[in-house]
């Protein structure tokens, strides 16, 4: 047991530290620190920059165009990015569909899709949730009917983040309505410019347009849009469980950014007697968040070290997701509290510029509400851990 990095990893850390220090655009930082997402064009520019260094897909194996990092290097990559207030990469192509394509896709699909994900040329959106299928995702009712050399897809998707930006969508649709719930579901890779797709924006409580409703009316796609086999779409998602470790590392290591932001806000928030940080109650609450984050970061280090030596981490990645989202919410709530009236200016009026340093901490606090809902609500995560890991 040790916490040390070997000389190769130390050199890698120094290289990453220099890179992120020199290349993180300063205009990203105020938003990144609060846990907010960037604009799509900014994400794409960041992706292309990383790709130019060979790091477009830090978690992928080299044979598929990945950086070929070891889990330890991946951990270093994310922790150094966090330290420099650098963004996460947008994950739906990189982490949600890319690995399914390189594990189960045809050679033609791999050649068509993987390089464009790594290069930042394609933007993928996820067509999973539906109005009647949220936590109960296997209740999807979107249909895909074979008609000669086409599948005809009809239905409605909900909470489709960045459908308005994406040129590709991966979606779950029912190909066999008679089969048992999960067994009739297939996974399709479709182009967003296919006729019959209508997108309606959904503005979320942070007043940002991230997400959408997507209507599919007789959308005709080629048979090659099917990934793998008909009726196996549900099972392909399992490959992602093994990869959750890397995703939770990227998220969790960013908590340091929010904690730095909150601590700085406390140090700068003036009171009649000094600053908020002089109040021992404030220092105490910050300390509590910081020590909880320390526990989570060490959980991440353990899962990455286990990945490096091929060991199973059980349900720890799901546990980290639960605790990370809870902590992110609490820290951003506290940050907003610390700002007092400085958190009030949320939107500009008329020609007057917005007072203060921008609405980002308050937006980050509001945005954080979704983190305990998306990717399987925390209650669903707890159900799964209880069943799979605790035998209840």
């Amino acid at each position, binding site marked *: *047991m040790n*916490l040390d990095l070997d000389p190769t990893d130390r050199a890698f850390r120094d290289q990453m530290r220099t890179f992120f220090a020199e290349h993180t655009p300063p205009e990203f930082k105020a938003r990144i620190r609060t846990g907010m997402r960037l604009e799509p064009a900014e994400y794409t520019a960041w992706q292309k920059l990383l790709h130019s260094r060979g790091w477009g897909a830090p978690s992928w194996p080299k044979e598929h165009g990945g950086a070929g990092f070891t889990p330890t290097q991946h951990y270093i990559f994310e922790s150094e990015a966090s330290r420099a207030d650098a963004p996460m990469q947008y994950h739906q192509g990189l982490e949600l569909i890319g690995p399914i394509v390189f594990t189960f896709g045809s050679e033609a699909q791999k050649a068509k899709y993987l390089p464009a994900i790594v290069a930042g040329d394609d933007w993928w959106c996820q067509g999973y949730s539906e109005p009647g299928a949220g936590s109960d995702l296997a209740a999807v009712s979107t249909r895909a009917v074979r008609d000669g050399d086409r599948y005809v897809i009809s239905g409605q998707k909900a909470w489709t983040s960045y459908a308005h930006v994406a040129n590709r969508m991966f979606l779950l649709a029912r190909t066999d309505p008679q089969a048992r719930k999960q067994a009739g579901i297939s996974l399709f890779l479709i182009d967003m410019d296919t006729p019959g797709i209508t997108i309606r924006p959904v503005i979320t409580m942070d007043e940002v347009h991230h997400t959408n409703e997507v209507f599919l009316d007789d959308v005709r796609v080629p048979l090659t849009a099917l990934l793998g086999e008909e009726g196996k779409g549900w099972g392909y998602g399992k490959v992602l469980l093994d990869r959750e470790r890397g995703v939770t590392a990227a998220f969790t290591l960013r908590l340091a950014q929010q904690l730095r932001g909150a601590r700085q806000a406390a140090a700068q928030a003036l009171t009649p007697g000094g600053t908020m940080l002089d109040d021992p109650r404030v220092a105490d609450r910050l*300390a509590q968040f910081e020590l909880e984050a*320390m*526990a989570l970061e*060490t959980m991440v280090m353990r899962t990455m*070290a286990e990945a490096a030596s091929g060991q199973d981490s059980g349900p720890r990645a799901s546990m980290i997701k639960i605790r990370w989202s809870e902590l992110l919410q609490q820290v951003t709530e506290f940050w907003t509290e610390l700002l007092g009236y400085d958190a009030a200016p949320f939107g500009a009026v008329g020609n007057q510029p917005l007072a203060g340093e921008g609405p980002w901490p308050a937006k980050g606090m509001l945005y954080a509400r979704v983190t305990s809902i998306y990717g399987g609500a925390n209650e669903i995560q707890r159900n799964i851990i209880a069943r799979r890991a605790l035998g209840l």
Partner: protein
Amino acid sequence: MDFDLSDEQKLLRDSAARFGEDHYAFSAWRARAAEGRGFDRANWGRMAGLGWLALNVPEADGGLGGSPIDTMVLMEAFGRVLMLEPYVSTCVIAPLLLRHAVAGPRRALMDAIAAGAAVVSLADAEPGSRFDLQHIATRAAPTDGGFVLSGDKSHALDGGVADWFIVPARTAAGVADAGGISLFLVPADAAGLSIHASRAMDHRINARLRLDGVRVGAEALIGDAGDGAPRLRQAVDHAIVARLAEALGAMDAVCEMTLQHLRTRQQFGQPLGAFQALQHRAVDMAIACEEARSMTYLATLSLDKPEAERGRIVAAAKARVSQTSLYVGRQAVQLHGGVGFSEELAVGHYLKRLTMIDMAFGNADHQRARFAALSQAPAAA
């Protein structure tokens, strides 16, 4: 970056687990606890025979010169079975401090510790000091060939079963100063020393001490006069981390008991574990165990860092393990229902032990305040 045990450490883990199975069945533990003698001499002798009592004795003193990881492995196994033996006081704190003692008493006491022939307790608190190690009013006045010690100590872990005490006392400076603290070895039968023993809720026998003109020789001074504070802090940080591993073992054991209960206890025609409210509680307990394990590893592997960094991490770990372990212990009682409240079931004894570990060397609130103070400077940048 590696969190795996070495092959030797795995062997140590396995033999400690076997020791627990062989000698710490709950019924036997309960009978021993009821005797009120604090710990079992036969088990202590067996642990000496296995070499465990010499683990932290330096090789130069005939010991094994083990690492904090070795201590962690043992303590986790001991925590699973609610060990009663005075391991942390005698085999973690004492060997660390005795390294600085003069050769004669140093070797004699190290030998006695390794053989299971001496229990050594640190008098770690005074009335009014709360958990502040360097708030010391006890005075040590130099006399011909030695010192005279006078003062009150409000807590000495395992002090009711100790043969020797390590007593911090002032040879100079004011009551709250870091300087001027010296450490003294005092035998339990010293004239002028009164020992007021009491049993804690976890069946350890601790003590309060009154030193009323206790005379000790010059060789009783551990290290140089006035330089005791950093050594005391280091030894106590090691002791804290050892107790975190103990808490970890206890947490895992009590979680397993609770899961077993949820799987087997039937109410409303189904196992308790079929109820979602209880499933989610069990998951939160399991997450608490994972957090505690992570913090214990981090703290164990940080014990050799420079003092400020070591103290910051140990304080954070103690705070978080205290919080998570009390959550687990209390929920374990709750999920067991009425039987969880019974003295006949192990689960309540685990909560009592975890309560005492929280208290030891500063509870969660104290350690969080210590962490906050140590975090103020570096993280504000």
